[in-house]
């Protein structure tokens, strides 16, 4: 009796989890399916008929394509700068023990525990009464770097937590200059963490809407274009571009996982012959 009950509970939980996954994918099915729809009128919201037209002409909506390009440019510039700034902070925090490090740790979390609307509106008040920068590309990039720095610093710090810093000393003992030690020893070892953090920063920048909305001036990024268009028309190209971004990110995710698995496999196969040699000599 007991066993049947626990079995039922076991499967009920699995089914609940399955339904949870289904819930997560509901709008995604919808977005991808409607990229193949031939809409009647301005709004791509009712299923009419199957067509490949939208996928043949993904960049037919000029304003949408332009906005996507602007978003990619913003993400590229802001990711580059924030990756450098954030990684330096992470290296300082994990490499050194210093006065004030706990305060810095707390300070880094603050931007993440502040609602985006507060970050966006307060930054806009900073730009309001001055004559140095006009609202536009530069202010968006500044805003994005501001929230990316914390994410990058925390991600990189988490990834290099177990790093063996005595390797640096070893390199210097063998006569390497500090610069050479950094480029030949430190950087290659912490690079995977930095790359992962920069991918996250890039994704955050591409998708940011609320903070950008407050600091954009006349510049229209991809999310802003969608927001502005949503009340007037929803062309199927939105779905096509969204699906493209989705498939591309899945491809990046998969290639990362596969590369990781290959590395593991290479490690284990490299370890085997060594053992054989040891056996021989013994």
């Amino acid at each position, binding site marked *: 009796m007991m066993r049947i009950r626990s079995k039922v509970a076991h499967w009920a939980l699995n089914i609940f989890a399955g339904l*949870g996954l289904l819930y997560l994918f509901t709008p995604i099915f919808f977005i991808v399916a409607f990229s193949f729809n031939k809409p009647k009128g301005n709004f791509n*919201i009712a299923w009419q008929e199957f067509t490949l037209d939208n996928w043949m002409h993904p960049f037919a909506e000029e304003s949408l394509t332009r906005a996507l390009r602007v978003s990619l440019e913003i993400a590229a510039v802001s990711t580059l700068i924030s990756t450098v700034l954030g990684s330096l902070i992470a*290296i*300082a925090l994990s490499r050194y023990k210093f006065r004030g490090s706990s305060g810095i740790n707390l300070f880094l979390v603050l*931007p993440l*525990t502040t609602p985006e*609307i507060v970050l966006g509106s307060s930054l806009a008040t*900073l730009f309001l009464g001055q004559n140095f920068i006009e609202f536009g590309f530069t202010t968006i990039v500044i805003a994005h770097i501001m929230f990316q720095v914390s994410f990058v610093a925390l991600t990189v710090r988490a990834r290099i937590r177990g790093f063996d810093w005595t390797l640096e000393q070893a390199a210097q003992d063998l006569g390497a200059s500090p610069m050479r030690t950094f480029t030949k020893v430190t950087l290659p070892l912490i690079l995977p963490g930095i790359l992962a953090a920069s991918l996250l920063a890039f994704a955050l920048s591409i998708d940011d809407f609320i903070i950008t909305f407050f600091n954009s001036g006349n510049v229209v990024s991809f*999310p802003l274009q969608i927001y502005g268009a949503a009340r007037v028309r929803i062309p199927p190209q939105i779905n096509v571009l969204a699906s493209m971004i989705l498939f591309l990110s899945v491809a990046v995710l998969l290639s990362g996982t596969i590369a990781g698995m290959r590395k593991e496999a290479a490690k284990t196969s490299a370890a085997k012959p060594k053992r054989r040699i040891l056996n021989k000599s013994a």
Partner: protein
Amino acid sequence: MTTGVTVSRRIGTNADRVGLGAMLVASACLVALGAKWVSGPASSVVLLVLALVLIGVLVLALRGGPEARRLLAPYGLLKPGMLWLALFFLAPVWSLLRISLSTKPSRFSVDYNFSWAFENYSNAFKDFGTQFQHAFVYAAIATVLTVLIGYPLAYVIAFRGGKYKNILLGMVVIPFFTSYLIRTIAWSTILADRGFVVRTFDAVGVVQVLEWLHIMDNGKLLNTPAAVIGGLTYNFLPFMLLPIYVSLEKIDTNLVNAAGDLYSSATRAFRKVVLPLSIPGVFAGTLLTFIPAAGDFVNAQFLGNPNTTMIGNSIQDQFLKQNNYPVASAMSAVLMFSIASLVLLYTKIFGTEDLA
């Protein structure tokens, strides 16, 4: 000569104090300049202090010997990022507070004068009290729902995923690779009045029940509070699920087995072993979900109606459409302070130290 050497040695051994002090002074200078705390000739003085401090640290690093350099190094690495945050995170908060206490000479003027105008705050509460209430109530309900959906899913992936663990985790994240706005707009189409979901509910005959539960309203699903809460729940689910998963993943399954060996039932083992060990994840997830949800205005805009607007909608409207910066800033400041105090209270009650 000897005094000079001892002085420089003393500076050398205390270089960390100098480095930290220089960073703090430089940050304060940037906040003062950015927030227009100082103006005119005073700002040139502050700029000069900033330059002198930075040059001073540089000189100390170049001439102070290896020990001083080692002590100064972390501050050198921190400085670019920290000064960026000082100028574009701290200074804005300061200028937000300043504008929230300012008045505008006329409705269409861009200028504003600082005048301790506390009436902005009372006006914000008087005119937008409902919106504050909506923001906190909707965000709280959405947070509870993300725990109810996210915890079981994270549990199944962490303990029953086996070799498919990473694939399942990837599947949880994949939906969030599409744009936030597109996802929300997709929900508005799914829940639309004559859409698939409403028609299914009609066919099954649960509309009456859902109306009684206040989930549906006059046969509508879209443009109801439930739709807004549903959107918030959906969009912030990964922020709850991932921290819970991380804390569940760390649990040693031997502990659960040990509980079983000691004749504890499965539910009791869960309650006494797994649940307490996963509380840090729930704690972090709650903050990561509630904070952005309370400030959100996208879900209320696309899935709600004029009676379900949240404080984010009002701030956005007052700031960008009405150009009423003082009241918009006052609302932003109230949102910031109330969330900060909620977080503090929450940390006091649940007392988990490691947030990050």
